[in-house]
């Protein structure tokens, strides 16, 4: 298994910070709820875009720490149980991390984003049931999934637009 971090440790660390910054921005956007009268569509799963499109050649250890911090930030600003999103982001990264990279095509990214959401929903049901003692409303999560999938192309385009300096090599992100 090849190690695909940047040779320069500072550069690898900076790339992890780039991912964290992008994640923070997405967390802020994820707080938006679009009200259509009887239906409310949230963007809860938006920060998963940052996990799926994490910069190539970022320091793996710092990326893990960044994702943990990103999850904690999400937990705090959303007022939910602390640690829930931190755990979810780490697990999602470990599960799908080897299959995603910024340089891959739109459809592939879209597919892995969908997979990430499905894993997140599964974790929310299991952990939510254990932490709060009741299951989250699946309709709400369904609407949120729809909302996140709807806006994904916009953020994908923005991410690829502002990352011309990121590595475009087809190398895969190596997690462990």
């Amino acid at each position, binding site marked *: *298994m090849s*190690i695909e971090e940047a040779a320069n440790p500072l550069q690898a660390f900076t790339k992890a910070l780039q991912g964290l910054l992008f994640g923070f921005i997405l967390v*802020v956007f994820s*707080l*938006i*709820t679009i*009200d259509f*009268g*009887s239906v*409310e569509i*949230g963007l*809860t799963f938006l920060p998963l875009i940052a996990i799926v499109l994490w910069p190539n050649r970022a320091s*793996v*250890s710092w990326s*893990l*720490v960044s994702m*943990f911090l990103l*999850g*904690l930030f999400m937990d*705090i*600003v*959303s*007022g*939910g*149980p*602390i*640690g*829930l999103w*931190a*755990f979810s982001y*780490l*697990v999602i990264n*470990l599960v799908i991390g080897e299959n995603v990279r910024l340089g891959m095509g739109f459809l592939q990214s879209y597919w892995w984003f969908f997979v990430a959401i499905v894993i997140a929903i599964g974790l*929310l049901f299991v*952990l*939510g049931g*254990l*932490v*709060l003692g*009741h299951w*989250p*409303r699946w309709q*709400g*999560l369904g609407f*949120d999934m729809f909302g996140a999938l709807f806006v994904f192309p916009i953020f994908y385009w923005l991410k690829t637009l502002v990352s011309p300096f990121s590595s475009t090599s087809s190398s895969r992100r190596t*997690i*462990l």
Partner: protein
Amino acid sequence: MSGFNRSDNSRLTRRVVAAFLILLSLIIILADKQRQASIKSGHLSLDDPSAKVLGFISTPARGFGNLVRNAGHRANAYEENIRLRAELARLKGIENRVLDLTTRLKQYEKILAVDEEDTARGKKIAARAVFERHGPFVHSALINAGGDKSIEPGFAVMTVDGFYGHIVRVGQSSARVLLATDLNSRISVMSRRSGSRAIMVGNNTSRPTLRFIASGADWADGDQVVTSGDGGELPAGLPIGTAISTKEKTPKVELYTDGKAVDWVWVYPFKPIAPPENDELKPTDMTK
């Protein structure tokens, strides 16, 4: 290098970091579940800066939303003006009746020597709802006033339309409001028409349900739902919404705040009524 090359070493480091962080997340989840003081204080200390940051970020979005809403209002200004004039004429008559009834009520109270003055309520505290969160588990809002304005957990939060929620956590300059729609929200309510009691239970939808209704209770479609004050946690009479019947037999409440943009809110200070065992007589009272 004692059997390890650089690649093996860094791979091991990654595994250790990943395992440590996952374990740490699980510990945090469990600690938060038990509401340990350290986690709570950490949550509180981060609520204040996030309220400030989100308040700053939400300003342009709020401005844009207001612009769109105001454009709609301006388009309907003429019709709105006619409607408001008619309503003003109608309310003038009602105002006279209210004044008349208030005077009469005071006279009756004087005759019966009833002291109904509600001393438990303090002055309303104005605050701005920085943002509202409708997540998979929590429906809450963050307001930009906290301990610095003497806000305490349990205080009711109102908008111009009606009951919004109650304070669950207070920071120095921010507070978190648990919305009436939240899954954990339980509010003692009554029908203003019949006085029938119920508990309004949040269900993470825009329409909470009315539960624990007595068999002979008189609830009808369109009844105004207000806080009952039972349990002494919230003041009585705060308007919440309108009762509506559903197919599932349990009536629901259409909240007055539903679908309305929430900007400014008012926090209602209220001293909960303590049970006698927790409300000991002071020596001076005993001597009296």
